[in-house]
Every structure is written in structure tokens, then in C-alpha cells.
């Protein structure tokens, strides 16, 4: 039997040139980003790595390969205190900020008077540079600051010097307030977006199944917004760990300093050869940060795998 159905013409086959273009189309389109990223990030990392191992012809130093700068750094008095202080300034605000942000994001889903205004105001610090936050903290919390002077005027303290030392101390509350001022809006924004995507149905289902509000939060809401919380905490922690300007301005002016401040002090030394030590510190910061983030992500993936999500 002869088929009367018309055959469609075969689609034109791509030539070798088109085939090649198709193959490299995406890499070519990505090339500008890759070049900028490589030269700015990887390039500087390689330069820092080489200098930390003694290769710095710019400063007339070429003792490559040597681990001298690392061994001197690790055996230096106060190095481990610096590591501890850097961790302290990074972890405490991350934990406090995350807890506060989750609470705020949950509250923002409810209807309350002035919500639209609050919704706008809480995001403002995201648009303002850290240095403005630093200036604000000095203005408010310094011993000669607005709060200390107000308390003195009210007769609650005998002298502005009696106001608790929040800035320029190893306690670092001034540093952490600046971090929180900037990072709470950031984490809230991320967690709130995840919550909006999640919708209320999951929680409603839990409630109708007999779960209390607290059980619903703990067993249903938090596990489902965990990806958002993890992403936000990773970014916030990484920033805090490597942050320089905030602890440099608001931190104590005596040793120990945070690792980034130590690196800056070495880099800014009149003796140029100390810049190699600064690079060793930078590499230590990068190594610790990377190891922590990798372990944190591995742990999180393990948690997600156990829950069948990955």
C-alpha cells in the first residue's frame, strides 16, 4: 500500500562551522565574566600565595619556596588569640543575627499596624555602606556619644566615662552591633523570601493535624526554610570573618587584633618585606574560611540527604 501522507522536509543539518560555534557558544558568552573573575580573584590569590611563599621580586625578595613566613606567623605570640578573636567576632553576630532575622521574617508574614512602613525601613541598612554604620555607632555608643551624654544629663551616670565601654575594647560589642545592623536586614530578606515561596499551607496542614504553633515552627517551618538560612549564614559568616574596616576602626587598639587587621598592620609596615607575612595571614584567613564553609556545607548536605532532599 502506498502512503498518501506527505513527508515533511528534513531539517537542515548544521555545517562544521556552525557546529563549532554551537559548541563554544556558552563558553564564549561567559568569557568576559570569567576573565574579570580570574584576573581579580584568582590572580590576586595566586600573587598572595606566591608572596607568602617568599616570591616578591617587587620588594627585592626571592626566597621561593619557603614556609618561613608561615612558621613565624604561627609561632608569633598572640597569633592564636588573633584567630580566636576573629572567630568570636564572626560567629557571635552570625548566630544572634540569624535568630533575630528568622523571628523578624516570621513576624513580617503577619498583619500588623505600620507593616508597610516597617517593611521599607528594615531594608534601609542594606543600601548604606558599612562606614556609615561605623560612624553611627561612634556617634551613639562612644563614651562621649549621644547615649552617654543623655544618660549623664539625666543624672543616671556621674560622668560620660562611666558609660560601659562598647567601642575600642576586645569585647567588640560595637563591631558586632555594626555587623548586626547590616546583616539582620540581609538575612531577614532572604529568609522572608523563602517563607513567601513556601506559603502558609504547610503550616496550616500541620495545625489541622494537631501540631501546636511551636511544634509547627520546629518540625515544619524551620526545616523547610533551612536552605535559605544556610545560604544567608554562609555569606554573613564569610563576610564577618574577613571583615577589615569595622574591627580596624571600632576594635581595641592593643593586641590581639583580628586576622584581617593583623594582615593590614603587616602590609602597612614601613618595612616592605613584612608584606610577605601579611600575605601569609591572608592565605591563612582564606584557608580557614574555605575549610569552615566546606565542612558546614558538607554537614548540611548530609542533613538534607537524610531528609531525602538531595
Amino acid at each position, binding site marked *: 500500500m502506498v502512503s498518501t501522507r506527505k513527508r515533511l522536509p528534513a531539517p537542515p543539518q548544521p555545517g562544521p562551522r556552525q557546529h563549532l560555534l554551537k559548541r563554544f557558544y556558552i563558553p564564549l558568552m561567559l568569557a568576559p565574566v570569567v576573565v574579570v573573575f580570574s584576573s581579580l580573584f584568582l590572580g590576586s590569590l595566586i600573587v598572595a600565595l606566591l608572596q607568602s611563599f617568599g616570591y616578591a621580586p617587587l620588594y627585592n625578595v626571592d626566597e621561593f619556596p619557603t614556609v618561613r613566613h608561615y612558621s613565624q606567623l604561627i609561632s608569633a605570640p598572640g597569633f592564636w588569640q588573633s584567630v580566636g578573636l576573629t572567630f568570636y567576632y564572626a560567629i557571635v553576630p552570625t548566630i544572634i543575627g540569624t535568630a533575630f532575622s528568622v523571628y523578624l521574617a516570621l513576624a513580617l508574614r503577619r498583619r500588623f499596624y505600620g507593616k508597610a512602613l516597617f517593611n521599607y525601613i528594615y531594608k534601609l541598612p542594606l543600601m548604606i555602606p558599612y562606614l556609615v554604620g561605623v560612624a553611627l555607632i561612634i556617634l551613639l555608643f562612644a563614651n562621649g556619644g549621644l547615649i552617654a551624654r543623655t544618660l549623664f544629663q539625666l543624672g543616671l551616670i556621674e560622668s560620660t566615662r562611666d558609660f560601659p565601654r562598647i567601642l575600642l575594647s576586645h569585647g567588640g560589642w560595637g563591631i558586632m552591633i555594626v555587623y548586626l545592623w547590616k546583616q539582620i536586614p540581609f538575612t531577614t530578606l532572604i529568609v522572608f523570601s523563602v517563607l513567601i515561596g513556601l506559603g502558609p*499551607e504547610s503550616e*496550616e496542614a500541620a*495545625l489541622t*493535624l494537631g501540631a501546636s504553633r511551636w511544634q509547627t515552627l520546629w518540625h515544619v517551618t524551620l526545616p523547610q526554610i533551612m536552605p535559605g538560612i544556610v545560604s544567608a549564614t554562609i555569606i554573613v559568616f564569610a563576610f564577618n570573618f574577613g571583615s577589615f574596616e569595622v574591627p580596624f576602626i571600632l576594635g581595641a587598639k592593643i593586641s590581639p587584633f583580628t586576622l584581617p587587621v593583623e594582615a593590614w598592620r603587616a602590609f602597612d609596615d614601613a618595612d616592605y618585606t613584612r608584606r610577605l607575612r601579611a600575605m601569609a595571614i591572608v592565605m591563612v584567613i582564606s584557608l580557614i574560611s574555605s575549610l569552615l564553609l566546606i565542612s558546614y556545607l558538607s554537614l548540611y548536605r548530609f542533613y538534607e540527604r537524610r531528609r*531525602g*532532599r538531595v
Partner: protein
Amino acid sequence: MTELEIDSLVKRFDDVIAVGGVSLTVKAGSLVALLGPSGCGKTTTLRMIAGLEQPTAGDIRFNGESVLPLQPEKRNIGMVFQRYVLFPHMNVAGNVGFGLRMRRLPKAEIAERVREVLEIVQLDGFERRFPSQLSGGQQQRVAIARTVITNPRVMLMDEPLSNLDAKLREEMRAFITDLQKRLQITTLFVTHDQVEAIELADQIGVMFDGNLVQFGTPEEIFNRPRTSRIADFMGATNLIVGTLERKGDGESVLTTSVQKLRVGHAPPHPVGSEVVATVRPEHIDLFPAAAGGDCAENCFSAAIEEAVYYGGTVSYQVRSGDFSLQIKDRSTRRFARGEGVIVRLNPENLWVFPEVGGEREAV
């Protein structure tokens, strides 16, 4: 078993009245469907029963006792959602046992009851699978299992079949009917699908614009709709305008533009008034033109204007003068477009409404 009573329930969102004074009773162990188009207030009614919305006025009672002061988690209801809403971070056993875990029952008892319920919903062996590894029908069965395991006083179902394909929907309808009869749980089922409501429910409440416009058995709603809008919603799309010429003992006669039609009931409306008769497309008989001599009553000649094949049935649009009717006939015999036919309207299948303020109300 629990009787659910809704009494003059009102829900207002700012200036919008979502539910405007709905009252109905779901007898213990029965299944009632709330049927209506999108936005008619049926889901809001369900959410108020669940405690997820606070009513503006009215009362909700379980066995005569108001549940309004109770939080959702204290009402002991089960709710099955349109989008299943399984917890994606828990496997099937975790989802099904969730309600019992929240009640802090011993682990061994939870495991035993999960096993039993999964057997009932024919998902034994699926305990360790996660929702993302299940089909739509399986997910919906897990959602139902998660609800029935807590022995709810009332089960609420919010369009639970609307996300399933046609074949699965049919299977799930049979499954839900069977399960509900077996467990005897008082159930309120929300749907916009009239076929679903008729197949599943013991009684149907039809809702339009926040109001319950008719409540009755599926037969009553299907065959004796109270208004032309309900008739239209239930698929009776043929409306025949006429004048009530006379009425007698259990029957009446209408004069229409084509011919006189005998109607199998006597509307209490005065003789001479304008009325509208409705008849379902599947209740009209169609014969070849040659068979015209055998048809004695309510018959007239017409021509096929349109014929659409639907597998088991064929949908025809026929015209006779200014009469245009939709007819559904079996597909074992076919009429061609333009072919002459004889149409018969069975007096028992004609249902008469008078005109009331734009909406025709049954008499």
C-alpha cells in the same frame, strides 16, 4: 461519629462578603459536597470549619457544641488540601505519623498505626519514600492517610482531585467513596466539578456568591435545580421560553414558538405567565427523520447544525425555527451535519422556572 452543623456563617474580608450566612448540617458519617464556581466562598467556609479563618458571624458546632473557641489544632479535624501539602522533608512514614507524633504517642504505636493506615490506602512498602518520589495519586493517598490516622471528628477536603489527570481522578473518586464509607468519617468535600459532587456525595450544597442556593441529594440537584443558574451550572444548558397555557393534575402544557409541550409536573405559577423550561442535553431523544411517524408527543422536526464526536457520545446542536438545542446522543449511531432528525422532549425531563429578577427560579 460527629454531626457537623454550620449556622448562619458569615465571613467578611474588609468590604467583601466571602460567605454570606451559610447554614447546613452534615449528618454523622455522611459525605456532603459543597459545589460552586471559583470564588463562591466554599473554600472559605471549609477554612472556617478548620479554624484557619475566624468567622465574622455565625457558629460551627460538632455534635451541638460550638468549636469556635478552639484553635485549629484542638478541633480534631482532618484537612486534605488541593495541592496535597505533604511535608517534603519527611518520608511517607514521617508524613503519615506526623499527627500522632505531635500527640506524643509511643513510637511503637505510631509505627503500628502507620503500617495499618498505609495498608488501607494501598501504600504499604512506600514508608521510606519521600513525597518527590511519588506520583500525584500516591501523594494524595498519603495526604488522606495522614488525615485519617488521627481519627478526625470531621474530614474536610478542599478540591483534592483537581490536580490529578482524568483517569486517576476517577480512581481516586472510587477510593475516597470506599474509604469514607468504610471509616464512616463525617466529610465535607469542596469541588467545582458537578460530576465529582454527584458521584461522591450523599448530599450536595450548591454555593453561588457566598450563599448556599440549594441543598439536597444529588438527584434533586441534578433533576430539579431550584434556579436556572443552578441548572446551567449542573450542565442543563437548554432553556426553552414559553407561556404556561394550562395546568392540571401533576402536569401542564407550555406554548412555545415551535409547538406545544407537555411538562410532567404542574408549576404553581398562574396560567398565562411567561416561564422557562430546561432540559439536560443527555435527556433529549433523537430519531432519524424517517421514524417521525412513531413519535406521538413533544416531538418536532429539526436539522443537525453541528456534530462533535466525544468518543462514547456525540454532541449535536440542532435547530428547529428559533429553537436551538444541545443534545448528547450515543455514538453508536451518527447523524451528519445538515441531516433532518426528529427531536423528542420527554415530559418527565422538562423542568419549569418562572423569571425572577434576571435569575429564573424553580417553581
